[in-house]
């Protein structure tokens, strides 16, 4: 049903409207890390009574499966530069790198008060100086890291 990458001038505004909807409907700041945090915090205490952030994250997980059905399969195979670089027994590096990256992503986003969505999208759109600083920092860092990886592999 879906076959091509959605045009950026459609996809971007839809994402922006999601931010506006969270604010207009229940005065929330859309952020995926907030959703993860809510799920982790409640589940670690054996509770399932999530606030809106948890339900936003549940919708997000479900969206991947809905997309899978509409697209007729995942939209990519392998895992980027990692599965192109590591073969055979060297593939053990992939889980190591992904686990370590995940740790940095989770802890870093919590410390910074948001990830690409919470700070990058919602925070910058609200013209929050903290979010602008965070967004500039993580974009610059990720760009440098990508070029470093390209130089090494």
């Amino acid at each position: 049903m879906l076959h091509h990458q959605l045009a950026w001038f459609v996809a971007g505004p839809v994402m922006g409207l999601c931010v506006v909807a969270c604010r207009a409907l229940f005065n929330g700041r859309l952020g995926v890390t907030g959703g993860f945090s809510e799920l982790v915090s409640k589940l670690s205490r054996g509770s399932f009574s999530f606030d809106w952030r948890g339900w936003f994250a549940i919708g997000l997980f479900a969206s991947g499966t809905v997309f899978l059905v509409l697209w007729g399969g995942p939209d990519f195979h392998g895992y980027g530069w990692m599965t192109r670089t590591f073969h055979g027994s060297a593939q053990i590096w992939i889980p190591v790198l992904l686990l370590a990256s995940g740790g940095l992503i989770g802890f870093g986003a919590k410390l910074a008060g948001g990830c690409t969505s919470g700070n990058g999208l919602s925070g910058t759109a609200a013209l929050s100086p903290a979010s602008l600083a965070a967004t500039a920092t993580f974009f610059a860092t990720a760009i440098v890291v990508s070029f470093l990886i390209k130089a090494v592999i």
Partner: protein
Amino acid sequence: MRVRIAAAAIGLVFGITLCWSGMSSPDVIRGALLFEQSYLFLFFASAVGTAALGLALLRRRDRRALLIDTPLVWTRDSPARRHIIGSLLFGIGWGVAEACPGPIATQIGQGIGWAVFTLVGTVAGVYLFLRRSLPETEPALDVEPSANPAMSPAVG
């Protein structure tokens, strides 16, 4: 209840758009971060622009939320060390894994096996942060402020 259904629906729309724009794919993220493709930047800028316009319109008058009885207010924080250090750590993880939390969730939904490792790492990072009982940094705002005492309504 209505708030939770609305939030799940927004998550669904947000995630399908994320997938449809190719953001679940590590190579799409990598192509953007290496300045080989402009799509992500145009997509991101148009998302921020739309959201900024919408929020500015919401702020123009004293409006109240549509689903709960609360005024639409939010604060603009000043940058602090934690925003920079946290984003440095986050940026390293993002640059290596070529996925941030949204795409990690949609990759899992798409059944991408490798993403389980990224998710486990992310959950561990969040859990470690929460265990250290550092102050809550992700403002959930005014929905059920009593449900989590650590989540003071001071933010927004």
